[in-house]
């Protein structure tokens, strides 16, 4: 893999399986299987896929919010998979998350100041005026005024709330941030503002992102490298250019062609991908895309295709292409 020399965060063959009650039966959900990815310092990796593909689980596994069933999570060269609860708490300073829904990400009953100050109260000895100054500074970093601290979330619109959520995530100077559908709930005019803010912070604060999204266009705009997932399996991973100019996996191709482009002159005849997404409780054998793949051959139904390198850093899991 053309992974950077010293990745900041790395997952090695991480699988997450969990059980869920469906009616009176216990079913295993295969949320994530053998997921390996590395994020270099200062890099943005986009993680794309449809619902149930395990992209959120992958993000949470990298943050230690979900315990892997198997595999390792490595942070700055240190295996943190089996860290105790207490040690993870110390780790929390370095890794943070930005959520999809800014309306539910802020406690409606407490002031913005207290939301942002909480990480300081839990992890540092900052109190009083020093704490207020830190909160004000964070708010200004994300383009808000320090006066916002005295208000409750209901005084703010979705975009402003998302800025506050970002401020809270930045509180303890993390080096790695997982943005889980961070702009999905926002209107497009606000989405652009937040995307710009995230890109800007990457340079000014020095962050690495795992940018999880179902929106291929936004991912194209922000990512250095892109990974495409389907039903818990990594299908293709490569540079921005590899994925968008030279998509190789049949699923990547289908996914890219399915996105409606906001330009009527691009209307053309493409055939929509047939069929439904299978349930992650009952994934197909072999290649998980085999039920919908137009190119599937016999082998695809029996053996899982390994990720193989097609060009430098461009890996594809497909028997055919």
């Amino acid at each position, binding site marked *: 893999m053309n992974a950077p020399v010293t990745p900041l965060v790395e997952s090695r063959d991480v699988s997450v399986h969990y059980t869920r009650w469906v009616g009176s039966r216990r079913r295993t959900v295969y949320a994530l299987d053998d997921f390996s990815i590395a994020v270099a310092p200062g890099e943005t990796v986009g993680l794309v896929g449809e619902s149930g593909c395990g992209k959120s689980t992958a993000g949470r596994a990298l943050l230690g*919010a979900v315990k892997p069933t198997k595999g390792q999570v490595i942070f700055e060269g240190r295996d943190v998979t089996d860290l105790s609860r207490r040690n*993870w708490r110390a780790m929390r300073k370095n890794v943070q998350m930005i*959520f*999809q829904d800014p309306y539910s*990400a802020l*406690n409606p009953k407490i002031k913005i100041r207290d939301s942002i100050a909480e990480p300081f109260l*839990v992890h540092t000895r900052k109190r009083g005026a020093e704490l207020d100054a830190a909160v004000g500074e964070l708010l200004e970093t994300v383009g808000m005024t320090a006066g916002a601290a005295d208000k409750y979330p*209901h*005084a703010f619109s979705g975009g402003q709330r998302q800025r506050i959520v970002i401020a809270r995530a930045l509180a*303890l100077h993390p080096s790695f941030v997982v943005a889980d559908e961070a702009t999905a709930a926002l209107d497009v005019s606000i989405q652009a503002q937040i995307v710009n803010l995230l890109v800007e912070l990457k340079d000014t604060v020095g962050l690495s992102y795992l940018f999880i999204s179902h929106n291929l266009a936004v991912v194209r705009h922000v990512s250095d490298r892109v990974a495409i997932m389907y039903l818990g399996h990594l299908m293709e991973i490569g540079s921005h250019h590899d994925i968008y100019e030279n998509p190789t996996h049949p699923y990547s191709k289908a996914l890219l062609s399915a996105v409606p482009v906001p330009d009527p002159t691009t209307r053309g005849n493409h055939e929509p991908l047939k069929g439904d997404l299978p349930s992650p409780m009952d994934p197909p054998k072999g290649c998980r895309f085999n039920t919908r793949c137009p190119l599937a051959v016999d082998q695809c139904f029996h053996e899982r295709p390994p990720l193989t390198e097609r060009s430098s850093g461009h890996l594809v899991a497909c028997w055919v292409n």
Partner: protein
Amino acid sequence: MTATDDTMASEAGTGAADAAPPEGVTVLADLRSHLRKSKAGISGIIICSLFALVAILGPWLPLIKDPTKQSLPDRLTPPVGWGGTWAHPLGTDQLGRDILARLIDGARISLLVSVTAVIIAAILGTVLGLVAGYIGGRIDTLIVSAADVQMAFPGVLAGLILVAAFGPSVWLVIIVVAISSWMVFTRVGRNLVLTLKTSLFVEASELSGTPSSRVMWRHLLPNLVSSLITLCVLELAAAILAESAFAFLGFGVQPPRSSWGLMIQQGRNYVTGDGWWIVTFAGLAIAIVVLGVNLLSLWLQSFNDVAEREQIILERPGA
């Protein structure tokens, strides 16, 4: 031009988010303006405050007679308007005691029992609900099962067995009312916590390493308060009714102290003949106070509904 700009600015200023006072203040202001439009809310508040005032100040109110003073020559004096005099505005009972004085004395018991029981139930039930919902696992199963058992064994049933074993007393009634009400708070609290637990703000807090106790205290509890207050009011009505039922059965306060339920029990032999006012006024007192509490809870519910509805209309128009 300047003039228009100024008025515009001030108009925008009063409404704009920058000028919005802290939420606590707005909620109170909202409550007040909502109350002004609600006849039910106003009547509820008036009845409840009168009840509380009378109960607390009862013995110091001027012109109030001794509720225990018997006077057999005056027995079964009818109320004013039915041949009685202002000496006993609501008449007297079978022992010649003043009914108004006894009603006021009864209000004390009613308030004492219902408020104490609801406070105990609310604190116990909320803590258990919070812990069950947030911690989950075996503790949750245990608490939920306990609530289920309590559901099958509520109120009067528990009262019957306890009274049979320990004899009647006011404290027993308080305990019985409290134990037949705590699981309501537990269930509601737990369900709310289960929903809140999936909120991203809880996950965010956990992800920054916040300890569970702080999550429960700082993040979950404040979000339960408004629902639990409404529930407290609702349970208060149930508690007043329960107290009166126990007193009526003779399991609560004992003579010569009076209680509204006890007055009905003592006056029941006179309903068919010359003494209908004893049962009527005592029952009316219970019904009016409970109605006041119910009106209050109706209004609180409608306020919460309106607040919620407008939140949906105004905050998330796309949703």
